[in-house]
């Protein structure tokens, strides 16, 4: 965890149920960081890049990203975050989605995704995966954001 500022977790997930389950299991893993939840891509991007308290203007963040969003594809958001010159390009992105298509996974890593996790339908595996992600988050080093010029 960053020493100066707590790392905010930005969760972009259109399914409220999934979001709730993910948050529950992250909390169970002992992660107490602030989690901001967005159900669509537009408002998520707006928060990431424009909001005064958003990560681009204000401190480090870790992004949990679902690929199936109502208004845009998660890969578009990933591309924006990891684009050359983006203030967030070093922010870790964990893609957490139901898609287990090989091509899609490759594409996400090509775009710069840091971790790709397929949501298991079986809840025990799901809970297990999220808790492990939580444990992973407790040790991960998140770089500081370079404020946009």
């Amino acid at each position: 965890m960053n020493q100066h500022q707590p790392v905010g977790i930005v969760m972009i997930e259109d399914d409220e149920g999934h979001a709730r389950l993910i948050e529950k299991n992250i909390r169970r893993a002992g992660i107490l960081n602030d989690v901001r939840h967005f159900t669509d891509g537009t408002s998520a991007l707006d928060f990431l890049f424009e909001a005064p308290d958003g990560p681009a203007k204000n401190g480090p963040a870790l992004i949990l990203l679902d690929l199936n969003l109502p208004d845009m594809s998660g890969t578009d958001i990933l591309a924006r975050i990891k684009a050359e010159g983006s203030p967030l390009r070093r922010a870790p992105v964990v893609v957490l989605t139901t898609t287990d298509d090989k091509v899609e996974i490759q594409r996400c890593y090509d775009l710069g995704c840091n971790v790709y996790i397929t949501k298991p339908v079986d809840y025990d595996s799901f809970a297990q995966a999220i808790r492990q992600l939580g444990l992973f988050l407790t040790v991960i080093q998140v770089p500081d954001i370079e404020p946009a010029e």
Partner: protein
Amino acid sequence: MLGIAGRLASGRGKFSRVLVGFMVAGFACLLATGLAAGWVTQKIQYHSGWVNHTYQVEIAINRASLLIEQEETSRRGYLLTGLPVYREAYDDYAAALPGALDRIAELTADNPVQRAAIGRLRQHVAALEAQRARVTAIMDNGQRAAALIAFANETSIRRMRVIRDQASDMLAEERRLLAERDAEQAASVRAFYVILAVAAGILLVVAITSLLTILRYTRDLASSRDSLRQLNETLEDQVTERTSDLSRANDEIQRFAYIVSHDLRSPLVNVMGFTAELSTAAKPLTDLIDVVEEKAPELLTQEMKLAAREDLPEAIGFIRTSTQKMDRLINAILRLSREGRRVIAPEPIDLAAIADNAVAAIRHVIDDRGATVTVERPMPDLVSDRLAVEQILSNLIENATKYLQPGRPGQIRISATRARDRVIIAVADNGRGIDPRDHQRIFDLFRRSGTQDQPGEGIGLAHVRALAYRLGGTIDVASRLGEGATFRLNLPATYQIPQENAAA
């Protein structure tokens, strides 16, 4: 196409009817001409007979006239000379004369005119003969002078003239008859020519009409052939078009299946997740009930206890098993749609080797079930997708060993034949068979047939059929309950990569 075929068929019927009609007419004409010729020939023959007859009559009349003249000449010689040689000659001619007259009578017996004439002639000749005999008798007695006086007195020259006239009348009558018969003959010859001309005319008409009919039919044939060829040429385009339509539709279904199965997974994650949460939450509740029951049982009703200890766990259990099943089904659809998106890579395939591999891969299962598998050789060449053919074969072989008739060791035969540009691969077993009502159903997703005593979701054959379709083939089954089943996979011998797949 049907229209053209129909037109051709009816055209052929009409054509042959017309042609047969013409041929019958032609033969009728020929027959009529032949009959007419025969009739005319007969007429001419008949007429020639009569002409001949006329000449015979003429000869007979002339002979009789000559005899009469010669008789007269020799009598006069006798009267002049008294020489017996004249007398003998006279006797000879007189003796021959009745025969000559009889001959005329005989020849003209059918003609009343001539009969009457010969009667008169006979009278005159008889009178003449009598007179001659009288004079000759006087001469015979040596009274030469008396005989000459009698000769001078007799009117024989007048009588002779009458006889000559009579004879020439008869000759004239015969000539008249001859002229009549000539006219008749000319008429029948004319009739023959008329018939001949008419027949020739009809034949000509028949020939021309037949020729025109044949020409028209040939033209029809040629135009039908042209349109057939055109149809054939466009047929290929049509087939290509349909194929691309089909593959587009297929792609759409695949995409649809993928999206649907994918999107179904999301809510399922929630259902399963919150069921687990529910289950977790139920635990402290049950604990609470236990504690309350121990410390203050009066607070508890039977209902509360039942809800916490039985109803909740039961409901959660059902939700769980159902969602698990749903998960399996969705995964099956996903797998099918993913298989459908795989790129087909055709290559020359050794079918027998693939069959052997498929058998070897599930050898332990086959042995466990006590079945034997025979791969019949040789197998025809095939250019197709190796993986897909392998999957189809192993699915079919696995199924064949799975549904055995109890008490009968399984025997499975794999064979392949080539039929023109198709290869037909047959997997035949002696298992429990499939009810004919289910022959279509078993290829549908999640559908199974017969006793449900074997594990499975009803996915294998749906998968097989999807693969077969992707390879441009078909699959069907021939079977009866209790008598084994034969699955026939019909594949193109050489897989053609669809041209317009990119359109998807």
